[in-house]
Protein backbone atom coordinates (compact mmCIF):
# COMPACT_ATOMS: atom_id res chain seq x y z
CA UNK A 1 0.00 0.00 0.00
CA UNK A 2 3.00 2.34 -0.26
CA UNK A 3 1.29 4.45 -2.84
CA UNK A 4 2.10 8.07 -3.39
CA UNK A 5 -1.08 9.04 -1.55
CA UNK A 6 -0.60 9.65 2.15
CA UNK A 7 -4.31 10.07 2.78
CA UNK A 8 -7.08 8.29 0.97
CA UNK A 9 -10.68 9.31 1.41
CA UNK A 10 -13.11 6.76 0.08
CA UNK A 11 -16.77 7.72 -0.16
CA UNK A 12 -16.62 9.49 3.19
CA UNK A 13 -20.06 10.48 4.36
CA UNK A 14 -21.22 12.11 7.56
CA UNK A 15 -24.82 12.51 8.54
CA UNK A 16 -25.94 14.28 11.67
CA UNK A 17 -29.58 13.94 12.54
CA UNK A 18 -30.63 13.06 9.01
CA UNK A 19 -28.72 15.98 7.58
CA UNK A 20 -25.87 15.12 5.26
CA UNK A 21 -22.83 17.18 6.22
CA UNK A 22 -20.29 15.41 4.03
CA UNK A 23 -21.50 13.58 0.99
CA UNK A 24 -19.43 10.81 -0.60
CA UNK A 25 -16.03 12.49 -0.41
CA UNK A 26 -13.37 10.61 -2.36
CA UNK A 27 -9.94 12.19 -2.52
CA UNK A 28 -6.24 11.29 -2.49
CA UNK A 29 -3.62 13.53 -0.96
CA UNK A 30 -0.23 13.12 -2.62
CA UNK A 31 2.90 13.07 -0.45
CA UNK A 32 5.06 16.13 -0.01
CA UNK A 33 2.57 18.69 -1.24
CA UNK A 34 0.81 21.58 0.36
CA UNK A 35 -2.77 20.63 -0.29
CA UNK A 36 -5.50 23.19 0.18
CA UNK A 37 -9.01 22.41 1.25
CA UNK A 38 -11.17 25.26 0.23
CA UNK A 39 -14.80 26.00 0.78
CA UNK A 40 -17.20 28.60 2.05
CA UNK A 41 -18.14 28.65 5.72
CA UNK A 42 -20.32 25.71 6.65
CA UNK A 43 -19.28 23.60 3.68
CA UNK A 44 -17.90 20.80 5.84
CA UNK A 45 -14.17 21.54 6.01
CA UNK A 46 -13.85 21.25 9.77
CA UNK A 47 -16.11 18.20 9.88
CA UNK A 48 -13.86 16.50 7.34
CA UNK A 49 -10.77 17.31 9.36
CA UNK A 50 -12.39 16.07 12.55
CA UNK A 51 -13.13 12.78 10.84
CA UNK A 52 -9.56 12.58 9.56
CA UNK A 53 -8.16 12.79 13.08
CA UNK A 54 -10.81 10.57 14.65
CA UNK A 55 -12.60 13.23 16.67
CA UNK A 56 -15.76 12.39 14.76
CA UNK A 57 -17.00 9.13 13.35
CA UNK A 58 -17.86 8.64 9.74
CA UNK A 59 -21.36 7.52 8.90
CA UNK A 60 -20.05 5.75 5.83
CA UNK A 61 -16.82 5.31 3.94
CA UNK A 62 -13.22 5.06 4.98
CA UNK A 63 -10.22 7.28 5.58
CA UNK A 64 -6.76 5.74 5.42
CA UNK A 65 -3.67 7.58 6.56
CA UNK A 66 -0.36 6.01 5.62
CA UNK A 67 -2.34 2.89 4.72
CA UNK A 68 -3.97 2.49 8.15
CA UNK A 69 -7.68 2.99 8.60
CA UNK A 70 -8.58 5.77 11.01
CA UNK A 71 -11.68 3.88 12.12
CA UNK A 72 -10.25 0.44 12.79
CA UNK A 73 -6.53 1.07 13.25
CA UNK A 74 -6.62 4.46 14.92
CA UNK A 75 -3.47 4.34 17.01
CA UNK A 76 -1.37 3.42 13.99
CA UNK A 77 -3.01 5.84 11.58
CA UNK A 78 -2.80 8.83 13.91
CA UNK A 79 0.96 8.43 14.36
CA UNK A 80 1.41 9.86 10.91
CA UNK A 81 -0.54 12.93 11.84
CA UNK A 82 0.26 16.20 13.50
CA UNK A 83 -2.64 18.58 13.66
CA UNK A 84 -4.22 21.74 14.92
CA UNK A 85 -7.97 21.51 14.82
CA UNK A 86 -9.46 24.99 14.69
CA UNK A 87 -7.75 27.26 17.17
CA UNK A 88 -4.45 26.29 18.76
CA UNK A 89 -5.95 25.71 22.20
CA UNK A 90 -3.18 24.84 24.63
CA UNK A 91 -3.20 24.55 28.40
CA UNK A 92 -3.08 28.21 29.34
CA UNK A 93 -2.04 27.67 32.92
CA UNK A 94 1.04 25.73 31.82
CA UNK A 95 4.14 27.18 30.21
CA UNK A 96 4.84 26.60 26.54
CA UNK A 97 7.50 24.10 27.51
CA UNK A 98 5.18 22.18 29.80
CA UNK A 99 2.62 22.02 27.01
CA UNK A 100 5.18 20.52 24.66
CA UNK A 101 6.38 18.14 27.35
CA UNK A 102 2.79 17.06 27.86
CA UNK A 103 2.32 16.10 24.23
CA UNK A 104 5.83 14.66 23.91
CA UNK A 105 5.10 12.24 26.72
CA UNK A 106 2.17 10.87 24.77
CA UNK A 107 4.33 9.69 21.89
CA UNK A 108 7.17 7.20 22.24
CA UNK A 109 10.62 8.29 21.19
CA UNK A 110 10.14 12.03 21.56
CA UNK A 111 12.80 13.21 23.95
CA UNK A 112 13.93 16.53 25.35
CA UNK A 113 16.23 17.03 22.37
CA UNK A 114 13.33 16.93 19.98
CA UNK A 115 11.36 19.35 22.17
CA UNK A 116 14.25 21.82 22.06
CA UNK A 117 14.47 21.31 18.32
CA UNK A 118 10.83 22.20 17.63
CA UNK A 119 11.09 25.17 19.98
CA UNK A 120 13.94 26.50 17.88
CA UNK A 121 12.07 25.64 14.70
CA UNK A 122 9.05 27.60 15.87
CA UNK A 123 11.23 30.45 17.08
CA UNK A 124 9.86 30.36 20.62
CA UNK A 125 13.18 30.11 22.48
CA UNK A 126 12.78 33.30 24.44
CA UNK A 127 9.26 32.84 25.76
CA UNK A 128 8.98 29.07 26.06
CA UNK A 129 9.08 29.12 29.86
CA UNK A 130 6.32 31.71 30.13
CA UNK A 131 2.74 30.68 30.73
CA UNK A 132 0.73 30.26 27.55
CA UNK A 133 -1.89 32.72 28.78
CA UNK A 134 0.66 35.48 28.26
CA UNK A 135 1.23 34.51 24.61
CA UNK A 136 -0.11 36.42 21.64
CA UNK A 137 -2.26 34.60 19.13
CA UNK A 138 0.66 34.34 16.73
CA UNK A 139 2.81 32.73 19.39
CA UNK A 140 0.05 30.29 20.28
CA UNK A 141 -0.23 29.42 16.62
CA UNK A 142 3.50 28.73 16.51
CA UNK A 143 3.30 26.66 19.67
CA UNK A 144 0.46 24.78 18.03
CA UNK A 145 2.59 24.04 15.00
CA UNK A 146 5.47 23.04 17.30
CA UNK A 147 3.32 20.48 19.15
CA UNK A 148 2.04 19.14 15.84
CA UNK A 149 5.61 18.58 14.59
CA UNK A 150 6.95 16.94 17.76
CA UNK A 151 6.78 13.38 16.49
CA UNK A 152 7.95 14.22 12.94
CA UNK A 153 4.62 13.42 11.32
CA UNK A 154 4.38 12.75 7.61
CA UNK A 155 1.09 14.63 7.49
CA UNK A 156 0.41 18.01 9.03
CA UNK A 157 -3.23 19.04 9.22
CA UNK A 158 -4.05 22.67 9.88
CA UNK A 159 -7.59 23.93 10.12
CA UNK A 160 -7.86 27.60 9.13
CA UNK A 161 -4.30 28.31 10.28
CA UNK A 162 -4.27 31.92 9.22
CA UNK A 163 -7.35 32.87 11.21
CA UNK A 164 -6.61 35.86 13.38
CA UNK A 165 -3.00 36.23 12.27
CA UNK A 166 -1.68 39.58 11.10
CA UNK A 167 -0.21 39.86 7.58
CA UNK A 168 3.33 39.29 8.83
CA UNK A 169 2.22 36.22 10.73
CA UNK A 170 0.38 34.85 7.72
CA UNK A 171 3.38 35.33 5.51
CA UNK A 172 5.66 33.71 8.03
CA UNK A 173 3.37 30.72 8.37
CA UNK A 174 3.03 30.39 4.62
CA UNK A 175 6.78 30.37 4.05
CA UNK A 176 7.21 27.92 6.88
CA UNK A 177 4.64 25.49 5.52
CA UNK A 178 6.18 25.58 2.06
CA UNK A 179 9.56 24.92 3.62
CA UNK A 180 8.20 21.93 5.51
CA UNK A 181 6.73 20.47 2.36
CA UNK A 182 9.77 21.10 0.20
CA UNK A 183 12.60 20.32 2.61
CA UNK A 184 11.12 17.75 4.95
CA UNK A 185 8.71 16.15 2.53
CA UNK A 186 5.81 16.64 4.89
CA UNK A 187 2.39 16.69 3.35
CA UNK A 188 0.52 19.73 4.58
CA UNK A 189 -3.26 19.72 4.49
CA UNK A 190 -4.63 23.20 5.04
CA UNK A 191 -8.25 24.23 5.16
CA UNK A 192 -9.32 27.78 4.56
CA UNK A 193 -11.99 29.98 3.12
CA UNK A 194 -9.38 32.58 2.24
CA UNK A 195 -8.85 32.09 -1.45
CA UNK A 196 -5.92 34.38 -1.93
CA UNK A 197 -4.10 32.66 0.93
CA UNK A 198 -4.50 29.24 -0.61
CA UNK A 199 -3.28 30.52 -3.93
CA UNK A 200 0.03 31.57 -2.43
CA UNK A 201 0.51 28.52 -0.28
CA UNK A 202 -0.76 25.41 -2.03
CA UNK A 203 0.26 23.07 -4.80
CA UNK A 204 -3.24 21.76 -5.22
CA UNK A 205 -6.61 22.82 -3.98
CA UNK A 206 -9.73 20.74 -3.48
CA UNK A 207 -12.87 22.80 -3.48
CA UNK A 208 -15.76 21.65 -1.38
CA UNK A 209 -19.24 23.05 -1.27
CA UNK A 210 -22.21 21.89 0.78
CA UNK A 211 -20.33 18.73 1.73
CA UNK A 212 -19.50 17.77 -1.83
CA UNK A 213 -16.15 17.81 -3.54
CA UNK A 214 -16.70 19.88 -6.63
CA UNK A 215 -13.24 20.40 -8.05
CA UNK A 216 -9.53 19.76 -7.65
CA UNK A 217 -7.19 22.34 -9.15
CA UNK A 218 -3.48 22.38 -9.54
CA UNK A 219 -2.00 25.78 -8.79
CA UNK A 220 1.56 25.07 -9.74
CA UNK A 221 1.21 23.64 -13.19
CA UNK A 222 4.55 24.32 -14.90
CA UNK A 223 5.30 27.95 -15.77
CA UNK A 224 5.42 27.22 -19.49
CA UNK A 225 1.76 26.48 -19.80
CA UNK A 226 0.86 29.80 -18.24
CA UNK A 227 2.93 31.70 -20.75
CA UNK A 228 1.15 30.18 -23.68
CA UNK A 229 -2.08 31.98 -22.88
CA UNK A 230 -2.30 35.76 -23.14
CA UNK A 231 -3.53 37.28 -19.91
CA UNK A 232 -4.96 40.76 -19.39
CA UNK A 233 -2.22 43.19 -18.42
CA UNK A 234 -2.97 46.59 -16.91
CA UNK A 235 -0.74 49.54 -17.76
CA UNK A 236 -0.92 52.61 -15.55
CA UNK A 237 0.01 55.52 -17.78
CA UNK A 238 -0.22 59.28 -17.89
CA UNK A 239 -2.03 59.34 -21.25
CA UNK A 240 -3.77 55.99 -21.75
CA UNK A 241 -5.84 57.00 -24.77
CA UNK A 242 -2.82 58.23 -26.65
CA UNK A 243 -0.96 55.06 -25.74
CA UNK A 244 -3.80 52.95 -27.05
CA UNK A 245 -3.58 54.78 -30.34
CA UNK A 246 0.18 54.24 -30.48
CA UNK A 247 -0.20 50.55 -29.87
CA UNK A 248 -2.95 50.15 -32.43
CA UNK A 249 -0.71 52.00 -34.88
CA UNK A 250 2.54 50.20 -34.15
CA UNK A 251 1.48 46.63 -33.74
CA UNK A 252 -0.47 45.29 -36.59
CA UNK A 253 -2.66 42.31 -35.96
CA UNK A 254 -1.27 40.64 -39.03
CA UNK A 255 2.27 40.72 -37.65
CA UNK A 256 4.72 37.90 -37.46
CA UNK A 257 2.43 36.06 -35.00
CA UNK A 258 0.29 35.00 -37.88
CA UNK A 259 -2.66 37.29 -37.43
CA UNK A 260 -3.19 37.13 -33.73
CA UNK A 261 -5.79 39.59 -32.64
CA UNK A 262 -4.76 42.34 -30.27
CA UNK A 263 -7.33 43.07 -27.62
CA UNK A 264 -6.69 46.40 -26.00
CA UNK A 265 -8.94 48.94 -24.34
CA UNK A 266 -8.92 51.72 -21.79
CA UNK A 267 -10.83 50.95 -18.62
CA UNK A 268 -11.02 53.25 -15.61
CA UNK A 269 -7.98 55.16 -16.76
CA UNK A 270 -5.94 52.02 -17.25
CA UNK A 271 -4.82 50.52 -20.51
CA UNK A 272 -5.69 46.84 -20.55
CA UNK A 273 -4.08 44.60 -23.14
CA UNK A 274 -4.20 40.84 -23.51
CA UNK A 275 -0.55 39.96 -23.81
CA UNK A 276 1.96 37.17 -23.44
CA UNK A 277 4.74 37.53 -20.93
CA UNK A 278 7.32 38.42 -23.55
CA UNK A 279 5.04 41.03 -25.12
CA UNK A 280 4.81 42.99 -21.90
CA UNK A 281 8.45 44.02 -22.02
CA UNK A 282 8.19 45.03 -25.63
CA UNK A 283 5.02 47.02 -25.09
CA UNK A 284 6.72 48.82 -22.26
CA UNK A 285 9.74 49.62 -24.39
CA UNK A 286 7.47 50.91 -27.15
CA UNK A 287 5.50 53.16 -24.83
CA UNK A 288 8.59 54.59 -23.21
CA UNK A 289 10.13 55.28 -26.61
CA UNK A 290 7.00 57.18 -27.60
CA UNK A 291 7.29 59.38 -24.52
CA UNK A 292 4.45 57.87 -22.50
CA UNK A 293 5.16 57.72 -18.80
CA UNK A 294 4.61 54.23 -17.39
CA UNK A 295 3.77 54.18 -13.71
CA UNK A 296 2.88 50.56 -13.29
CA UNK A 297 2.30 47.25 -15.03
CA UNK A 298 0.13 44.55 -13.50
CA UNK A 299 -0.57 41.14 -14.85
CA UNK A 300 -4.13 40.14 -14.10
CA UNK A 301 -3.87 36.36 -14.13
CA UNK A 302 -7.13 34.71 -13.29
CA UNK A 303 -6.97 34.35 -9.58
CA UNK A 304 -8.17 31.44 -7.57
CA UNK A 305 -10.96 33.66 -6.40
CA UNK A 306 -12.24 33.99 -9.95
CA UNK A 307 -11.90 30.27 -10.42
CA UNK A 308 -13.57 29.61 -7.11
CA UNK A 309 -16.51 31.84 -7.84
CA UNK A 310 -16.71 30.33 -11.29
CA UNK A 311 -16.89 26.83 -9.88
CA UNK A 312 -19.22 27.51 -7.01
CA UNK A 313 -21.34 29.78 -9.14
CA UNK A 314 -20.73 32.63 -6.72
CA UNK A 315 -23.55 31.51 -4.50
CA UNK A 316 -23.19 31.48 -0.78
CA UNK A 317 -24.07 28.43 1.19
CA UNK A 318 -26.20 28.80 4.26
Amino acid sequence: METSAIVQFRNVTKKIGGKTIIDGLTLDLPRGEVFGFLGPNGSGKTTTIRMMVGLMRMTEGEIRIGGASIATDYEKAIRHVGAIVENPEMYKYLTGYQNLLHFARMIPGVGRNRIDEVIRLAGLDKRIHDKVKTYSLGMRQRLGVAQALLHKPSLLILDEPTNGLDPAGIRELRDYLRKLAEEEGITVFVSSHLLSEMELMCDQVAIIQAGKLIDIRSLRSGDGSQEAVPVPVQFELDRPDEALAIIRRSIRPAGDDGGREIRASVREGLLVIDALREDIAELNALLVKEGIRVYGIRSKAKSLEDQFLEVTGGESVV
Partner: protein
Amino acid sequence: MFDFGNLVLNENMKIYRRARVWIMWGLMVLAVAAVSGIAYSSSANPPSMWQMVAIEMIVMMPLVSIFAVIVAADIVAGEFTAGTIKLLLIRPWSRSKILLSKYAATLLFGFFSMALLYAALLLVNIIFFGYEKGIKAAEVFGAADPAMSAWSYFNQSFFMQFISLIVTVTLAFMISSVFRSGALAIGLSLFVVLMGKTLGQLFGLIDRKWVDYVLFQHLDLTRYIGMGSSGANGGMTLGFSLAVLAGYYVIFMALSWFVFTRRDVAA
Protein backbone atom coordinates in the same frame (compact mmCIF):
# COMPACT_ATOMS: atom_id res chain seq x y z
CA MET B 1 2.31 -0.68 24.54
CA PHE B 2 4.43 2.13 25.81
CA ASP B 3 4.27 3.84 29.11
CA PHE B 4 0.77 4.45 30.45
CA GLY B 5 2.41 6.13 33.44
CA ASN B 6 3.24 9.08 31.22
CA LEU B 7 -0.44 9.77 30.72
CA VAL B 8 -1.04 9.83 34.47
CA LEU B 9 2.03 12.04 34.83
CA ASN B 10 0.45 14.46 32.35
CA GLU B 11 -2.83 14.53 34.20
CA ASN B 12 -1.00 15.10 37.45
CA MET B 13 0.90 17.97 35.89
CA LYS B 14 -2.38 19.53 34.84
CA ILE B 15 -3.77 19.20 38.37
CA TYR B 16 -0.79 20.29 40.45
CA ARG B 17 0.59 23.02 38.21
CA ARG B 18 -2.46 25.09 38.97
CA ALA B 19 -2.62 27.36 41.94
CA ARG B 20 -6.11 26.27 42.94
CA VAL B 21 -5.01 22.91 44.31
CA TRP B 22 -2.44 24.51 46.56
CA ILE B 23 -4.94 27.12 47.70
CA MET B 24 -7.45 24.39 48.55
CA TRP B 25 -4.91 22.34 50.44
CA GLY B 26 -3.49 25.42 52.13
CA LEU B 27 -6.96 26.41 53.30
CA MET B 28 -7.56 22.94 54.65
CA VAL B 29 -4.41 22.82 56.74
CA LEU B 30 -4.88 26.42 57.82
CA ALA B 31 -8.45 25.75 58.96
CA VAL B 32 -7.35 22.79 61.07
CA ALA B 33 -4.54 24.81 62.62
CA ALA B 34 -6.79 27.82 63.23
CA VAL B 35 -9.58 25.87 64.94
CA SER B 36 -7.14 24.02 67.18
CA GLY B 37 -5.21 27.21 67.88
CA ILE B 38 -8.32 29.12 68.91
CA ALA B 39 -9.54 26.25 71.08
CA TYR B 40 -6.13 26.01 72.70
CA SER B 41 -5.68 29.70 73.48
CA SER B 42 -9.16 30.96 74.23
CA SER B 43 -10.64 28.29 76.40
CA ALA B 44 -10.04 28.20 80.13
CA ASN B 45 -10.03 24.47 80.18
CA PRO B 46 -8.65 23.33 76.82
CA PRO B 47 -10.22 20.29 75.10
CA SER B 48 -8.34 17.06 74.76
CA MET B 49 -6.46 16.12 71.59
CA TRP B 50 -8.93 13.43 70.49
CA GLN B 51 -11.90 15.71 71.10
CA MET B 52 -10.48 18.25 68.70
CA VAL B 53 -9.61 15.55 66.16
CA ALA B 54 -13.20 14.27 66.31
CA ILE B 55 -14.73 17.72 65.83
CA GLU B 56 -12.37 18.74 63.07
CA MET B 57 -12.77 15.48 61.23
CA ILE B 58 -16.52 16.00 60.98
CA VAL B 59 -16.04 19.58 59.80
CA MET B 60 -13.17 19.01 57.37
CA MET B 61 -14.17 15.77 55.71
CA PRO B 62 -16.88 17.41 53.55
CA LEU B 63 -14.27 19.94 52.47
CA VAL B 64 -12.04 17.15 51.18
CA SER B 65 -15.04 15.77 49.27
CA ILE B 66 -15.75 19.15 47.78
CA PHE B 67 -12.15 19.65 46.65
CA ALA B 68 -11.95 16.17 45.17
CA VAL B 69 -15.28 16.66 43.43
CA ILE B 70 -14.15 19.97 41.93
CA VAL B 71 -11.03 18.33 40.51
CA ALA B 72 -12.99 15.31 39.25
CA ALA B 73 -15.71 17.40 37.67
CA ASP B 74 -13.18 19.59 35.91
CA ILE B 75 -10.76 16.99 34.67
CA VAL B 76 -12.76 15.91 31.61
CA ALA B 77 -15.28 18.71 31.13
CA GLY B 78 -12.57 21.34 31.60
CA GLU B 79 -10.74 20.04 28.54
CA PHE B 80 -13.90 20.34 26.50
CA THR B 81 -14.52 23.87 27.75
CA ALA B 82 -10.97 24.96 26.95
CA GLY B 83 -10.92 23.08 23.64
CA THR B 84 -7.74 21.25 24.60
CA ILE B 85 -9.55 17.90 24.34
CA LYS B 86 -8.97 17.99 20.59
CA LEU B 87 -5.20 18.10 20.94
CA LEU B 88 -5.31 15.52 23.70
CA LEU B 89 -7.28 12.94 21.75
CA ILE B 90 -5.35 13.06 18.48
CA ARG B 91 -2.48 11.02 19.89
CA PRO B 92 -1.66 7.35 19.46
CA TRP B 93 -3.76 6.45 22.50
CA SER B 94 -7.26 5.06 22.65
CA ARG B 95 -9.86 7.23 24.30
CA SER B 96 -10.32 4.57 26.97
CA LYS B 97 -6.73 4.85 28.08
CA ILE B 98 -6.87 8.63 28.14
CA LEU B 99 -10.01 8.52 30.26
CA LEU B 100 -8.45 5.90 32.53
CA SER B 101 -5.40 8.11 33.07
CA LYS B 102 -7.71 10.95 34.07
CA TYR B 103 -9.60 8.71 36.45
CA ALA B 104 -6.39 7.48 38.02
CA ALA B 105 -5.17 11.04 38.53
CA THR B 106 -8.52 11.97 40.09
CA LEU B 107 -8.38 9.10 42.57
CA LEU B 108 -4.78 9.97 43.38
CA PHE B 109 -5.82 13.52 44.15
CA GLY B 110 -8.59 12.22 46.45
CA PHE B 111 -6.08 9.98 48.17
CA PHE B 112 -3.52 12.76 48.64
CA SER B 113 -6.18 15.10 50.02
CA MET B 114 -7.28 12.47 52.51
CA ALA B 115 -3.71 11.73 53.49
CA LEU B 116 -3.04 15.43 54.00
CA LEU B 117 -6.08 15.84 56.22
CA TYR B 118 -5.13 12.74 58.16
CA ALA B 119 -1.64 14.04 58.78
CA ALA B 120 -2.82 17.57 59.55
CA LEU B 121 -5.43 16.43 62.10
CA LEU B 122 -2.94 14.30 63.98
CA LEU B 123 0.08 16.58 63.79
CA VAL B 124 -1.64 19.87 64.57
CA ASN B 125 -3.54 18.48 67.53
CA ILE B 126 -0.56 16.58 68.90
CA ILE B 127 1.44 19.80 68.73
CA PHE B 128 -1.23 21.80 70.57
CA PHE B 129 -2.51 19.26 73.06
CA GLY B 130 0.00 16.41 73.16
CA TYR B 131 -0.80 12.79 72.32
CA GLU B 132 -3.32 11.11 74.58
CA LYS B 133 -3.04 7.37 74.97
CA GLY B 134 -5.76 4.94 75.93
CA ILE B 135 -8.73 7.12 75.01
CA LYS B 136 -11.81 5.13 74.04
CA ALA B 137 -13.77 5.87 70.89
CA ALA B 138 -16.96 5.88 72.94
CA GLU B 139 -15.78 9.03 74.78
CA VAL B 140 -14.84 11.22 71.82
CA PHE B 141 -16.46 9.76 68.71
CA GLY B 142 -19.61 8.44 70.35
CA ALA B 143 -19.03 4.88 69.18
CA ALA B 144 -21.27 2.21 70.70
CA ASP B 145 -18.50 -0.33 71.26
CA PRO B 146 -16.94 0.51 74.67
CA ALA B 147 -13.80 -1.48 73.96
CA MET B 148 -12.74 0.33 70.77
CA SER B 149 -9.88 2.81 71.02
CA ALA B 150 -10.06 6.31 69.60
CA TRP B 151 -7.01 5.58 67.45
CA SER B 152 -8.64 2.56 65.89
CA TYR B 153 -11.90 4.41 65.27
CA PHE B 154 -10.02 7.29 63.67
CA ASN B 155 -8.25 4.98 61.22
CA GLN B 156 -11.32 2.99 60.35
CA SER B 157 -13.26 6.15 59.86
CA PHE B 158 -10.73 7.42 57.32
CA PHE B 159 -10.85 4.13 55.51
CA MET B 160 -14.65 4.16 55.31
CA GLN B 161 -14.74 7.78 54.21
CA PHE B 162 -12.22 7.04 51.52
CA ILE B 163 -14.56 4.41 50.11
CA SER B 164 -17.41 6.95 50.10
CA LEU B 165 -15.09 9.49 48.53
CA ILE B 166 -14.28 7.11 45.68
CA VAL B 167 -17.97 6.72 44.90
CA THR B 168 -18.65 10.46 45.15
CA VAL B 169 -15.65 11.30 43.00
CA THR B 170 -16.69 8.70 40.44
CA LEU B 171 -20.12 10.31 40.31
CA ALA B 172 -18.51 13.70 39.67
CA PHE B 173 -16.22 12.11 37.08
CA MET B 174 -19.22 10.67 35.28
CA ILE B 175 -20.99 14.03 35.29
CA SER B 176 -17.76 15.50 33.94
CA SER B 177 -17.64 13.06 31.03
CA VAL B 178 -21.31 13.38 30.20
CA PHE B 179 -21.64 17.17 30.37
CA ARG B 180 -18.98 18.93 28.41
CA SER B 181 -19.24 22.16 30.32
CA GLY B 182 -16.80 22.47 33.20
CA ALA B 183 -18.96 24.93 35.13
CA LEU B 184 -22.06 22.77 34.81
CA ALA B 185 -20.19 19.64 35.84
CA ILE B 186 -18.73 21.31 38.93
CA GLY B 187 -22.04 22.89 39.89
CA LEU B 188 -24.04 19.73 39.47
CA SER B 189 -21.51 17.57 41.29
CA LEU B 190 -21.30 19.98 44.22
CA PHE B 191 -25.07 20.09 44.43
CA VAL B 192 -25.20 16.32 44.66
CA VAL B 193 -22.48 16.21 47.31
CA LEU B 194 -23.89 19.00 49.43
CA MET B 195 -27.51 17.93 49.17
CA GLY B 196 -26.69 14.24 49.46
CA LYS B 197 -27.17 14.03 53.21
CA THR B 198 -30.41 16.03 53.20
CA LEU B 199 -31.75 14.04 50.31
CA GLY B 200 -30.81 10.86 52.12
CA GLN B 201 -32.80 11.89 55.17
CA LEU B 202 -35.70 12.88 52.98
CA PHE B 203 -35.71 9.50 51.28
CA GLY B 204 -35.47 7.90 54.71
CA LEU B 205 -38.96 9.19 55.46
CA ILE B 206 -40.43 7.23 52.60
CA ASP B 207 -41.56 3.81 53.69
CA ARG B 208 -40.84 1.82 50.56
CA LYS B 209 -38.46 -1.00 49.81
CA TRP B 210 -36.66 0.80 46.96
CA VAL B 211 -35.52 3.58 49.27
CA ASP B 212 -32.93 1.17 50.62
CA TYR B 213 -31.25 1.26 47.22
CA VAL B 214 -30.91 5.03 46.97
CA LEU B 215 -27.27 6.10 46.77
CA PHE B 216 -27.47 8.80 49.45
CA GLN B 217 -28.60 6.28 52.07
CA HIS B 218 -25.21 4.60 51.86
CA LEU B 219 -22.62 7.34 51.53
CA ASP B 220 -22.07 7.59 55.28
CA LEU B 221 -20.29 4.37 56.12
CA THR B 222 -18.85 5.59 59.42
CA ARG B 223 -22.05 4.67 61.20
CA TYR B 224 -21.07 1.03 60.86
CA ILE B 225 -17.87 1.53 62.84
CA GLY B 226 -17.78 0.40 66.45
CA MET B 227 -21.38 -0.69 66.59
CA GLY B 228 -20.38 -3.29 69.11
CA SER B 229 -22.94 -6.01 69.56
CA SER B 230 -25.89 -4.13 68.07
CA GLY B 231 -25.06 -5.64 64.66
CA ALA B 232 -27.37 -3.94 62.21
CA ASN B 233 -27.95 -0.24 61.76
CA GLY B 234 -31.46 0.78 60.77
CA GLY B 235 -31.96 -2.65 59.30
CA MET B 236 -28.92 -2.34 57.04
CA THR B 237 -25.49 -3.86 57.24
CA LEU B 238 -22.11 -2.71 56.03
CA GLY B 239 -22.13 -5.48 53.47
CA PHE B 240 -25.43 -4.30 52.04
CA SER B 241 -24.25 -0.68 51.84
CA LEU B 242 -21.03 -1.69 50.13
CA ALA B 243 -22.97 -3.80 47.64
CA VAL B 244 -25.27 -0.89 46.80
CA LEU B 245 -22.27 1.46 46.43
CA ALA B 246 -20.54 -1.08 44.19
CA GLY B 247 -23.64 -1.23 42.01
CA TYR B 248 -23.68 2.54 41.58
CA TYR B 249 -19.94 2.55 41.00
CA VAL B 250 -20.28 0.15 38.10
CA ILE B 251 -23.08 2.24 36.58
CA PHE B 252 -21.07 5.48 36.91
CA MET B 253 -17.98 3.94 35.34
CA ALA B 254 -19.91 2.30 32.51
CA LEU B 255 -21.69 5.52 31.67
CA SER B 256 -18.47 7.58 31.76
CA TRP B 257 -16.72 5.19 29.44
CA PHE B 258 -19.64 4.70 27.12
CA VAL B 259 -20.19 8.40 26.59
CA PHE B 260 -16.56 9.44 26.41
CA THR B 261 -15.33 6.79 24.00
CA ARG B 262 -18.22 7.06 21.59
CA ARG B 263 -18.97 10.72 21.41
CA ASP B 264 -18.14 12.95 18.46
CA VAL B 265 -15.95 15.80 19.59
CA ALA B 266 -17.48 18.88 18.05
CA ALA B 267 -17.12 22.56 18.90
